[in-house]
C-alpha cells in the first residue's frame, strides 16, 4: 500500500489513554496525526484538535502538544494532534515561498490560511473516528491563527483556544515597526544596562546585536525627540481579522492566552485589545513571566491548569 499506513493503538500506562497513529487525506496528500482516546469505553462528545506550531511537528515545542493531549484525553476528551502539509510526517512540501526566502514568508502563508483545508480535514477525521460532534481547536502562535481560520468556517467547531497568537503579519514585524511601548521598554532597559560591566563587555567584544541597538535607539529618538509616529503599526493581519469577526458573529467561544514575556502579547495588548473598549468578546488570560514557548515547567503547569478550567467552564457536560 502506498502512502501512510497506520500503527497499532498503544495504551499509555501513565495517562491511562490510548494513542493511535492515524492518517487522512487532504487535497490528494495524506496527513499523519496522533489520536489520543480516553480509556473510558466511549469517547466524549467534544473532541479537541491541536494544530502545528509553525514549522514544528505535531509534538510541539518541547512536546507541549503531547503533554496537553495526554492530559486532556485523561479527562475525557478525544484529542487529535496532526501534521499539516509541509510539516512533520505529513505529505506535501511547500512550493511557496521559493528556496532561501526569509522564513517570515512561510509564516505569512500560515497566517493567511494555508492550513485551513488541512484543519478542516482533521476536524472531519476526528468526528468520523470518535463519537464527537463538537470540536475545540487549539493552537500556539501560527497554530492559533490557523485554528481561528478553520473555526470561522467549520460548523463542528464550538470553541477555539489561541495561545500566543500574532495579530500582525510576521513579515511586517521588524525593528522599525515594533510598537511604541516596546521601544520605550527596550530603551529603558538599555539605559539601565549603562552601569553594568557585562553589558559594556558584550558591546566591545561584538556580542551585542548592534542592529537592534541602533534600531531601538533611532526609533526612540525619532518618536520621543521629534514626535514621529509610525502608522504601519496599525497594520493588523487582515485575513485574521476577517476570521475573527466570523467566529465572533457565529457565537463560538474564544480564549486567548498570552505569555507575559512575549512580544506578541505587547502587540495584542496595544493594537488589538483597545478596539473592544474593555468589552472584548472573548476570554483573555496572561501567564505571568512566561516566554513564547512556555519553556519552564511552572509556566506549563499554569497553562495546563488554565486551559483545563476553561474547558470545564465551557463544556459542563464533560467531566474533568
Amino acid at each position: 500500500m502506498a502512502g501512510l499506513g497506520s500503527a497499532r493503538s498503544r495504551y499509555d500506562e501513565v495517562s491511562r489513554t490510548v494513542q493511535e497513529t492515524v492518517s487522512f487525506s487532504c487535497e490528494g496528500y495524506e496527513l499523519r496525526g496522533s489520536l489520543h482516546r480516553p480509556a473510558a469505553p466511549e469517547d466524549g462528545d467534544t473532541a479537541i484538535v491541536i494544530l502545528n506550531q509553525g514549522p514544528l511537528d505535531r509534538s510541539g515545542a518541547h512536546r507541549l502538544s503531547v503533554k496537553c493531549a495526554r492530559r486532556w484525553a485523561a479527562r475525557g476528551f478525544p484529542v487529535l494532534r496532526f501534521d499539516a502539509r509541509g510539516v512533520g510526517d505529513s505529505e506535501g512540501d511547500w512550493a511557496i515561498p521559493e528556496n532561501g526566502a526569509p522564513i517570515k514568508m512561510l509564516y505569512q502563508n500560515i497566517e493567511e490560511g494555508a492550513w485551513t483545508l488541512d484543519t478542516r480535514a482533521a476536524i472531519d477525521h476526528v468526528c468520523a473516528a470518535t463519537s464527537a460532534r463538537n470540536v475545540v481547536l487549539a493552537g500556539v502562535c501560527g497554530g492559533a491563527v490557523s485554528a481561528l481560520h478553520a473555526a470561522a468556517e467549520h460548523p463542528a467547531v464550538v470553541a477555539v483556544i489561541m495561545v500566543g497568537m500574532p495579530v500582525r503579519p510576521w513579515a511586517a514585524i521588524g525593528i522599525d515597526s515594533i510598537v511604541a511601548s516596546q521601544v520605550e521598554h527596550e530603551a529603558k532597559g538599555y539605559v539601565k544596562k549603562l552601569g553594568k560591566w557585562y553589558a559594556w563587555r558584550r558591546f566591545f567584544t561584538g556580542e551585542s546585536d548592534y542592529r537592534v541597538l541602533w534600531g531601538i535607539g533611532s526609533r526612540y529618538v525619532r518618536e520621543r525627540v521629534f514626535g514621529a509616529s509610525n502608522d504601519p503599526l496599525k497594520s493588523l493581519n487582515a485575513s485574521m481579522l476577517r476570521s475573527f469577526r466570523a467566529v465572533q458573529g457565529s457565537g463560538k467561544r474564544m480564549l486567548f492566552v498570552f505569555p507575559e514575556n512575549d512580544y506578541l502579547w505587547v502587540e495584542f495588548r496595544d493594537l488589538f485589545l483597545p478596539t473592544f473598549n474593555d468589552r472584548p468578546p472573548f476570554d483573555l488570560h496572561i501567564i505571568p513571566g512566561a516566554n513564547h514557548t512556555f519553556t519552564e515547567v511552572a509556566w506549563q503547569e499554569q497553562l495546563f491548569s488554565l486551559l483545563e478550567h476553561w474547558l470545564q467552564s465551557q463544556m459542563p457536560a464533560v467531566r474533568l
Partner: protein
Amino acid sequence: MLEAIEIGRRSIARAAGAPQDQSEQDRMFTRLYDKVRETPMWLSTANGDLYAVEYAPQGTVSRPPVVIAAPDGEERAWAARTLVQVARALAHYGSMVYRFDHLGQGESEGNYEATTWSSREADLDAALQMAQRHSGQTPIVLGVRLGGTLALAAVKRGTPMAGLVVWEPVVDPAQYVHQLLRVNVSTQMVALGRIERDRSDLIADARSGGVISVNGFGLSGPFIDALLALDLDSKIGQLSIPTLWLSTLSVDQTVTSNPSVVAKRASTFPFWKEPKSHRSGPPSFLAETVEWLASDRHGRGMTK
C-alpha cells in the same frame, strides 16, 4: 547533478507555473519525491515504546537499509521535517529507511528528563534490530548531530552495522553541554533580568537531582555527566567500518587519517536550528550520502 535535486526543482517549477485558475492552496504545496510506502509502528523496548516509521521503496530494494539517528532535544524538533524528507529521498533511491523518536521525544513514550545516554543507546540498538528483522540486512546508520555521536559510540560497543554516515556530529560533547547550559543562562537573563545560576551551578544542581531546562527540555545529571565523560577521539580512532563523515566544519586529523573514513567538508543550511530562511528541499549532505550509498565503498570497507 543528482536526480534528487532535479526532481525537487522540476516539481517546484511545475507548481510555480500552475494555471491561474488553480486554487492558491493547490499551488502552495507540491511533492518533492514520488510516494513511498510509509508504515508507522510502535517499537517496544525495556524502557517504553518508541515511535518509528518505515519508509519502503515502491520498486525494488536496491540499496542497503538505513536507520536514521536524529539529533537530540530542541535540535531534533527543528530537524524533524528535514529528516522526513531525507527518509523519503533515501527510500526513493532504493533503501528501506527507518526513522524513530527516542524515549521522551517526538511521539515516543516517556518523559525527556527521565532519559539518559544509556537509554538513547538502547533506543538505537532496538531500532537497528528492528531494521535488521524487517529488511533482512544489517543496516547502515545515518547519525545527525548527537545522533552521529551516539552512532559512533555504538560502533565502539560493537553494535552490528554495515556502515556509518554522520552529518555534523557533535565531536566535542563538553562544548555541546556548555552551549545547552548557555541557553538556560540566557533564559534567566530574559526572565529574571539577572543570572541566578551560572553554568557550574547548573551542573551542580543537576548532579544533586535537579533538572536543567534548555528551552523546555529537562537535562538530568546522569545525562550531562555521560556526555561530559564521552571519549570521542578513541571512538573515532577505532572506527573500523566504512564511514562517510560530512561536516560544515574542518574535519579533525583523527578522522581523516582513519582509512575506513571518507571525510568531506561541505556547506549546508543548519537544519537542526530554528530557521531564518525557508528551505524547500533536503540539505546538500543528502546528495553526498546518496552517491556514497550508490557506490560500493560502504560494502567493502574502502578507504578514501
